[in-house]
């Protein structure tokens, strides 16, 4: 259990760190167009986690 929580903490820390870095990069490089792309990727990731395998089917049916 503690391993799991530890892993979760690390994952959370890395995620936060990633977003901090990403936002820093966007501001530093003035690449503001990247912000929506990153947000979209984040939403996609949440979507895949939330829906699991059926996420793929959602894409397929949307494209039919």
């Amino acid at each position, binding site marked *: 259990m503690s391993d799991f929580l530890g892993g979760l903490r690390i994952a959370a820390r890395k995620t936060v760190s990633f977003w901090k870095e990403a936002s820093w990069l966007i501001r530093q490089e*003035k*690449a*503001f*167009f*990247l*912000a*929506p*792309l990153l*947000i*979209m990727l984040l939403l996609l990731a949440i*979507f895949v986690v*939330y*829906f*699991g*395998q*059926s*996420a*793929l*089917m*959602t*894409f*397929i*049916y*949307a*494209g*039919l």
Partner: protein
Amino acid sequence: MSGLSPRDEPGRPRRWRRRVVAVILGVLASLVFLELLVRLVTFVHGSLQTWGNREGIDPDAYVILCIGESTTAAGGEDSYPAQLGAILNEHGEGTRYRVVNLGLHGADSSLLMARLEEQLGLYQPAMVVAMMGANDVGRAGAIPQGPAPMAESQSFLDNFKVYRLAKQLLFELEDREDARPGPSPAGPPPGMRPTGGMPPDGGMPGGMPGGMPPDGGMPGGMPPDGGMPGGMPGGMPGGMPVGMPPDGGMPGMGPGGAMAPGMGLFDRPPAGPVPAGGDAAPGNGGALPPALRYALPVPTDKPPQEVQIDLGFLEKIPESARAFAVLAEAADKEGLFATAEQFARKALALDPNLSDMQILYGRLLFSRGRLEEAEQVASRATVAPELRAPLLNGLATAYRGNGRLADARRMLAIGCDESFGETLRSRFCAQLLYSYLEAGMNQEARELALRAFEDRAGTELVMSAQHFFEQSGEKEKAAELGSRLHESGQRELPPATRQAYAFLASTLAERGVKLVSVQYPTQNVAPLAAAVAPWPEVKVVDNEELFLEALRTVPYDALFVDRCYGVFGHATRRGNRLLAGNIARAILGKAIEVKPDE
């Protein structure tokens, strides 16, 4: 800060403008990326499927296409098409058969027909085997005439896959919300139609991973319903263009001849083409329950742009109610709604009993947001109940669209108590039951559900009540209603299924392709035989007695993996072998012995 150009100095509005532009470009790029991604996924999936299906087809092979929903699609090598191919090649006396499984999980017959032209062109089959309609329960849509008209029915936004993806996601999220356990029964279990649909997990053993969308419906599958959304009274343009349904009812209309598409209880709106005036109408958004979402156009704030016409000529025509009625109908057809309303009002002033004007006037009123006036018209209307029903239904929809749920329930309650025919009244009651559940009015819902045990309760009320009792743990009542549903299902095919078979038979007859129509296991073949009766060359496969006989000797689980269609479900390998053997006998026209595959 020396690196900053003068333009980038803090406080300069241009800097913010550039950022905003960059973000907008980023949003556009995201949408383009997503659009491409969806198209790519679909393309890859479609290509793999087509490649798998076309693999091994040689020009001399006798190609048979099997179309249907998950009962056809699922199972891989255990599916009935796969086993049919093996049986035919074993008993075919030298003819090489190639059976292509074109089953599509969760597809209703409209979607299958929409894909027909493309599939016929792709595979050039000599024969089509169709077993479809299980997902048509609650749908009464007309059949699209191939891809072209379907495309015409789509809104502009539906051309973008990303838009359809967004809609699909919203529906899935809604389903997830619906699926959450609550203190009270909240409609049907997600992913299941009342008497059909997919298992809750959306898939089945051996089927497609992850299964289909929880709604059991297919995006892109909604046919242009032709007539007025939600079933405006008879005579509305559109409907089924391939001839009258075999029951002689109005094209595009539901059973009973009045209420039409969109009334399907628990019917999930697909992410595909949107029926005109349906979801695209402002205010007709996520607040509407599935059963009502496509019922009728919701009032719009902006009246349509109208051409100003000089009505001076009216002074020259006699004061004839019928003349004004004709003018009103003509104006309505041309989209001149304000003018049509004037004419209708005038016609009714001259003759208040003009039933078609009562309906037209009421529809014009509520479609322009004047709901109370429309309600007055509905209450005064002296027309036949079957013609008043669309008004009540439309008002219920419009009230819902405006968040006036109590008023919507009031309209549904009127419809539920009206002296309509069994089918119409049942649809109102079913929607009312759903509304009660939605509002947490469980006692009222239960009282209404108990009415399903009355003699003339109607199929839709029985379906909704069955799910109510299922969800509330009253299994015995649910089972009793389930058996009643089975009996009623034996009597008739859903209108959409009848229309699909008629479309399929006529299309294939034109192309010289043979058709074998297969009734589902344990189901009476008579309704299907009646649907294809105008095409005597069509072979009909009866699976009722065969399966009932088999079920006398083997347990249900030996033949079916679930009961998602009530009295039958997705077949096991053994069940599919039984099915395939029976179809093979019909195709070969001779008795063959098919060894049961234990």
